[in-house]
């Protein structure tokens, strides 16, 4: 398995929908081995940023560059080892949890032994072992999220872009999910996660706070909180009026 560091540089990104700038000059650096948390209120531009990094949206201005071991590489080279979990996932309502895993195994061409091991591991972490036969259409919100995550993790990605992955997930699974992310981080994986849970923001290695299409603060959580003179991200959010609509 290649352990070459990967990095993503986002430079001067603007994205305008109609007359409305969703992103208004965003410059960010993401590197593997660090848990990057992008936080901000609704409409701050987090999901748009993720979609631009993924090449799903074209920026109105600016560039996104990928590097592997310091060398610039095309997005197409990164793509096969990339996992994206959108907020609104599209799974197959008629397929069960087990069938989803089997389907993605085939799709990604994962060898049988490795698949069995991963499958067991993922079902254990997500506590979905008892529900393998339940169709996705009948899962609760949190279980559905977990299934999406399992499908994304099956292929052992090197870059993971996760858009509010733990939304609606219960407190225990949420913790286990973060532990899993930390374990992945040790393998030089690039992880970028958006979250509305402020305790999760505190657990990131680097936090990037967005407001109205701009990055307004970033840094190591403790540093950032001290800089803003608050104790937790909850306080920071409430004080800045984040999320006001």
């Amino acid at each position, binding site marked *: 398995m290649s352990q070459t560091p990967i990095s993503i540089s986002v430079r001067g990104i603007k994205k305008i929908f109609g007359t409305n700038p969703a992103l208004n000059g965003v410059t960010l650096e993401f590197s593997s081995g660090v848990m990057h948390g992008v936080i901000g*209120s*609704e*409409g701050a531009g987090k999901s748009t940023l993720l979609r631009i990094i993924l090449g799903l949206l074209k920026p109105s201005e600016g560039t996104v560059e990928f590097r592997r071991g310091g060398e610039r590489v095309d997005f197409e080279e990164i793509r096969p080892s990339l996992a994206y979990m959108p*907020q609104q996932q599209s799974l197959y309502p008629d397929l069960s949890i087990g069938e989803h895993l089997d389907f993605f195994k085939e799709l990604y061409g994962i060898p049988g032994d490795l698949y069995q091991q991963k499958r067991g591991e993922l079902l254990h972490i997500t*506590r*979905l072992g*008892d*529900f393998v036969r339940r169709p996705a259409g009948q899962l*609760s*919100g*949190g*279980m559905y999220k*977990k299934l999406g995550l399992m499908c994304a993790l099956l292929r052992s990605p090197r870059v993971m872009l996760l858009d*509010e992955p733990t*939304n*609606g*997930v*219960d*407190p*225990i*699974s*949420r*913790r286990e999910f*973060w532990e899993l992310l*930390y*374990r992945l*981080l*040790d393998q030089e994986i690039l992880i970028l996660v958006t979250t*509305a849970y*402020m*305790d*999760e*923001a*505190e*657990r990131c290695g680097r936090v990037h706070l967005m407001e109205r299409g701009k990055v307004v603060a970033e840094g*190591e*959580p*403790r540093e950032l*909180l001290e800089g803003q003179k608050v104790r*937790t*991200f*909850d306080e920071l*959010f*409430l004080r800045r*009026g*984040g*999320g*006001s*609509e």
Partner: protein
Amino acid sequence: MNFFSGEVVAVSEAAVEVKDLTVRFNNFIAVDRISFSVHPGEIFGFLGANGAGKTTTIRVLCGLLYPTDGYVRVAGVSLDDGERAIKSKVGYMSQKFTLYDDLTVEENLSFTASLHKLDLKTYVERRQELFDFIAFDRPIHDFVRDLPGGTKQQISLAAALLHNPEIIFLDEPTAGVTPVARNRFWSLIRKLSERGKTVFVTTHYMDEAEQCDRIALMREGKIIALDTPGGLKRSAFPVPMLEFDPKESLSFAEVSEMRQDRVFLFFEPYGLRFHAAVRSEKEWEEVRPKFEQKFNVRQIKPSLEDVFIQMVEGKTG
């Protein structure tokens, strides 16, 4: 007429009464002989891991699912009084937003009103009362798809309250909205309770659960605890809880090692800090200086998140 001053349930009668409720899907037991009651006007929290059986229970209580076994009475009506009888007494806001994105706010509400067979005059009056209640100040002809998540959620609540139900069931109403929108939503929940409505709510946000009058904790189809937030904390943690604030960042390996330390009954990350319960004061005093080199340690009250982890996780197997 004031929307909120509907008929009040006799104080002596429980808003929800459940006895030995069981729901089985083929061989899977989703709800396993649970019994509880909810008082009128109470904010009743229903917590549990994903798949514990919360939504299934709610679906029975709303008259959407007929149970395999057991007795259920909601707002004085039993399931055998016909499903419409219960449906007219309860409001239900499900996990997935129950609004049509392609309809405007007004169309969504008038459609809901017609399902409940409200006459036009009553509908218009109630709509205005509910708009005042949620402080909705946007054009009512805006499409729902264009609304921010927090506003959508409040319109969903208004739709669920349109027929003036005595009890409102909210299934993860705040999943995916910002902290500020969650706060605002909970102030609405408190107002509903103050005005005599019974609120039955599920959430995965433990700061929200703190605001419930009582909480039932479900695990694998069973209710494993039912008490006030304070009561749950006392029974889950008879020992004092400590907060460990690291003086320097810790590696994942260091944290894992600490969690294994047998002086701790409980050691869980909490943002930048950790919450811990020790097995005994005596053992703790012996090792305390060692930990105080790396951490600022202070005594705190356990949070409901700690309770949830301890109760749901701690007694497995």
